[in-house]
């Protein structure tokens, strides 16, 4: 630990692949489709991210022009060494995001495997502090399960990544994925890709879309809980990544109220939704709204537990949160929990020293 007196586990770091870097991990004909046919993954969003350097922190773009997050040495220098991370969890830059592809499942499945091999070889095995996420093409459920079986036992893979996009993952069709994850002590990490937040479409401005991302997170949580995922897989946990956290008390109260009245429809729920949340769902802090200490403490009280929040930077994206500046001052015990202990308690494969 360099500058920080307390340990930091960063639950959202975006390493970025350039397609040319994963070619050697791809089989034919998929390599051919990228090299010669110029395949790139579809994008849905009509806007740019109107910060200084698009999606990236302007000072994280590499001096030679490569995109931010694409070089381990640079990331070590700017993030891991400078801040003094104990551990960081890689969540990718969502390109490729195989589970977000609308078709061509074979390509999606091949990309997921290539990405996992690249991530293990180029990142996880080169820095002791970095832990990883298993990429899958979940729309091809059986291939996804095979991929979890293939790389899920790697000692540094801690979760299976699913995008928050236009599929609700609590549907029983996807439960074999959760079964495979649970079997390998992997949690589920959900991060938004480009979810339609406006009645299945796009609002007119990026600022509207970005404001409403937490609604997409709330939809997935509501869907996963009421579809009984957490009752069926009691050792499974869900990390909701990059939706902020000020919405947490709201959705807990809302689900509990509905459950009291409408439990009849979902009799497989054995616990009230807020208890399921407290036991099996965690939330990364970034992007943190600027709160006073009093507002922050009050929110934690409303959550009913101080074990839900896990600190994250979102490096190297523009809405990065600084570990020293993003959250208000807090009591030392709470700080230890939010900055490290909660994440260590959540991920079974993260060393809990």
């Amino acid at each position, binding site marked *: 630990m360099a500058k920080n007196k307390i340990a930091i586990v960063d639950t959202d770091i975006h390493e970025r692949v350039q397609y040319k870097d994963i070619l050697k991990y791809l089989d034919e004909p998929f390599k051919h489709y990228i090299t010669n046919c110029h395949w790139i993954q579809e994008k849905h969003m009509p806007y740019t991210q109107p*910060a*200084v*350097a698009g999606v990236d*922190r302007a*000072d994280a773009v590499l001096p030679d022009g490569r995109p931010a997050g694409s070089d381990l040495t640079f990331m070590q220098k700017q993030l891991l060494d400078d801040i003094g991370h104990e551990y960081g969890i890689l969540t990718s830059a969502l390109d490729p995001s195989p589970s977000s592809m609308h078709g061509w499942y074979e390509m999606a499945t091949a990309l997921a495997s290539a990405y996992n091999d690249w991530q293990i070889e180029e990142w996880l095995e080169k820095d002791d502090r970095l832990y990883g996420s298993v990429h899958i093409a979940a729309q091809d459920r059986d291939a996804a399960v095979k991929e979890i079986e293939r790389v899920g036992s790697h000692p540094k893979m801690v979760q299976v990544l699913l995008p928050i996009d236009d599929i609700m993952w609590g549907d029983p069709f996807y439960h074999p994925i959760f079964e495979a994850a649970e079997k390998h002590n992997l949690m589920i990490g959900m991060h938004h890709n480009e979810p339609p937040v406006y009645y299945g479409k796009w609002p007119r401005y990026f600022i509207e879309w970005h404001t409403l991302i937490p609604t997409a997170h709330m939809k997935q949580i509501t869907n996963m809980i009421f579809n009984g995922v957490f009752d069926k897989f009691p050792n499974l946990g869900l990390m909701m990544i990059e939706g902020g956290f000020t919405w947490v008390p709201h959705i807990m109260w809302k689900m509990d109220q509905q459950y009291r009245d409408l439990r009849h429809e979902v009799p497989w729920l054995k616990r009230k939704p807020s208890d399921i949340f407290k036991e099996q769902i965690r939330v990364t802090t970034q992007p943190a709204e600027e709160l006073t200490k009093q507002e922050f403490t009050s929110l934690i009280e409303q959550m009913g537990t101080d074990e839900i929040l896990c600190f994250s930077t979102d490096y190297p994206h523009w*809405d990065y949160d600084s570990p*020293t500046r993003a959250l208000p001052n807090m009591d030392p015990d709470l700080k230890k929990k939010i900055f490290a202990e909660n994440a260590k308690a959540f991920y079974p494969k993260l060393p809990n020293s």
Partner: protein
Amino acid sequence: MKEQVVCKTTDLEPGQMKASLFGKQNVLICRTLDGEFYAFLNQCTHQGAPLDKGMICGATTDKSKPGEYDYCRKGEIVRCPWHGREFDIKDEGRMLANPNKKLPSYKVRIENDDVIIYK
């Protein structure tokens, strides 16, 4: 520290900015398109990002109406490299979205080719 030469006038073309040191303080020297120099603390008021890694640019102004962009002030706005917050160089470093916040600033004078800043 009363005053200090922080750079040469020739170090910055109009519309450029650079980091320098004023004693131990990391400062940002900006040159607007009319050739004037300005100096601020090189640290965003939000989370402390180094502003010299951001950009000096224009802004969509408060004259804009819904659905109609008014973009001007070229070379007069500093944007933070992280969250893109905008600070008005010619209005004491005030933040466009919240003019009550401003970047701490320094006085500047030019002697010969030297840019000198002082409190």
